[in-house]
């Protein structure tokens, strides 16, 4: 079906609602100059972020940076699922929950520590992602969104009533991460670097996926399932695949979270955290490589920056969100990118040709 017929923007499924890929999106970044630009940007970013702790930024800031880091990891999974395959979920915290609870239960009942639990958390969350994804093969976008919300609520109910196994409503505690190479992860700095490393790996993987033929396959499903099937793409398999990938990243985020908080309980994985995850992806932009990271940074740091009276800050926060969504429908990252391209165009006297 021709989508842009009649030149009225056809409302797209709740699932794939970002409209056209913004200029310069990671999708099909073929151009060599752009790739160099991207690598330079990534290196610069990592350098800055790695240098942060030595700038004496304070523990509060560092703590929030850690939260931002593992949240961003989960968001990258959601970003793959939403930005590439076009299937949104507002129950994503449940996947984090599976990762976190896997680690906590292994530690409490079997005495398994962080490093051994790490792959288990990732695998279990991936499986959970695949299972929760199954209904999406039958129901359409917005119906599926509500199903994810309900799955998340169900998980919370199960964890709350899980007795000793899940620690019920009180939740579970975990110990510290065993040292490797003498690194003590109880030190906040070291934990920060651990999360940072995980984030960099995530970023690399996501970048590779998005720019691989697999990424293109996902996008084809997002844009037109029927056509994708007709050229031989196994749509169902890839949908479940992306849910599992998305779950795997959430699992990684989950285990990092539980060993940071050292104590978890079901409410951490309920409706509200899930909504916030969806919100962060939308805010940052699901399709650009830095979108999820920017979303996580905004949501975690904005309340800090706007440290008004708490009630006022919430109101201001909500208003800021409305303004961003209205003015930058592709997310903040696409807005930033547009500004960046504009500046480049000005500086180098060349009009960016991207997307024209």
């Amino acid at each position: 079906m021709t989508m842009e017929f009649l030149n009225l923007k056809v409302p797209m499924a709740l699932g794939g609602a970002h409209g056209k890929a913004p200029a310069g999106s990671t999708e099909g970044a073929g151009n060599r100059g752009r790739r160099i630009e991207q690598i330079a940007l990534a290196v610069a970013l990592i350098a800055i972020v790695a240098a942060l702790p030595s700038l004496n930024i304070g523990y509060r800031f560092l703590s929030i940076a850690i939260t931002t880091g593992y949240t961003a990891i989960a968001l990258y999974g959601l970003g793959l699922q939403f930005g590439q395959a076009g299937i949104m979920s507002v129950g994503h915290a449940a996947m984090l929950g599976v990762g976190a609870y896997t680690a906590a239960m292994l530690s409490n009942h079997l005495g398994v520590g962080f490093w051994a639990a790490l792959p288990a958390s990732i695998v279990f969350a991936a499986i959970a992602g695949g299972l929760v994804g199954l209904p999406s093969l039958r129901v359409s976008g917005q119906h599926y969104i509500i199903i994810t919300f309900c799955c998340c609520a169900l998980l919370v109910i199960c964890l709350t009533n899980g007795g000793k196994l899940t620690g019920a409503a009180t939740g579970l505690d975990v110990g510290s991460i065993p040292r490797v190479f003498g690194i003590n992860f109880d030190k906040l700095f070291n934990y920060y670097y651990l999360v940072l490393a995980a984030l960099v790996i995530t970023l690399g993987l996501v970048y590779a996926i998005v720019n691989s033929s697999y990424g293109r396959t996902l996008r084809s499903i997002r844009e037109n399932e029927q056509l994708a099937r007709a050229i031989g793409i196994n749509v169902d398999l890839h949908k479940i695949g992306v849910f599992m990938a998305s779950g795997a990243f959430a699992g990684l985020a989950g285990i990092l979270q539980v060993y940071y908080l050292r104590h978890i309980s079901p409410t951490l994985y309920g409706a509200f955290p899930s909504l916030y995850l969806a919100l962060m992806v939308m805010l940052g932009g699901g399709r650009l490589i830095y979108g999820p990271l920017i979303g996580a940074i905004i949501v975690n740091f904005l309340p800090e920056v706007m440290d008004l009276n708490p009630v006022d800050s919430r109101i201001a926060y909500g208003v800021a969100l409305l303004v961003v969504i209205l003015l930058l429908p592709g997310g903040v990252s696409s807005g930033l990118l547009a500004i960046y391209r504009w500046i480049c165009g000005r500086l180098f006297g060349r009009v960016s040709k991207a997307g024209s």
Partner: protein
Amino acid sequence: MTLLTVEHLYTAYGAVKVNHNVSMTVDEGEIVTIIGPNGAGKSTILRAISGLLKPKQGTITFNGRNVTGLSADRMAGLGVVMSPEGRHIFGDLTVRENLKLGAYARKDQSGVDADIELMESYFDILAKKRDAKGSTLSGGQQQMLAIARGLMARPRILILDEPSLGLAPVMVKEVRSVIATVRDKFNAAVLLVEQNASLALAVSERGYLLQHGQIVASGPIGELRESSLMRELYFGEQRAPAGE
């Protein structure tokens, strides 16, 4: 009497300019065809006239009234009705409901049922599939429904974007007679974009030839068919460069 006047029309999608300085008229009861290669901007002119797309510049006058920039629903209320390219049937609604919606802007709801019967007599498939969902119709059946739905509005001017698309030859002939009927029975003008040469030439009186968004020739259809561009386009006598 001139029914529709388009003067110095410019259109664009964002930064992409499509039509430049297009001027044309349609008289009452007249059948006019716009002809032009793929991507020339034919559909875009129709969108601008029917109110789906705001012109960048220029005026559109209908029945002596300046209607530039009016929304599509207002235009439909005035009697400017378009049956869009690609059918756009409401797939979830039944054939009958689709027809009823066609008459939405009409004030005389009493006449609607009679008109539905009339449409069913023009296209008997619509009677057979009365309660079937739009999406289950075959491509050609949908096309017939789209034309009938446009007629249901009893328009002053009916705008048809490629009405013969996907119709079997026997049905193309049917459409030809329906278009004639529109004028004779419904007293309406017809503005047509049509790639099927035999249909366009058979029904229309006048034509505009469009290339690169601009009108390059106009006149009685018999004269136009002799123009070289027209021959090239409709009869493939010379190759037009691809991808225009």
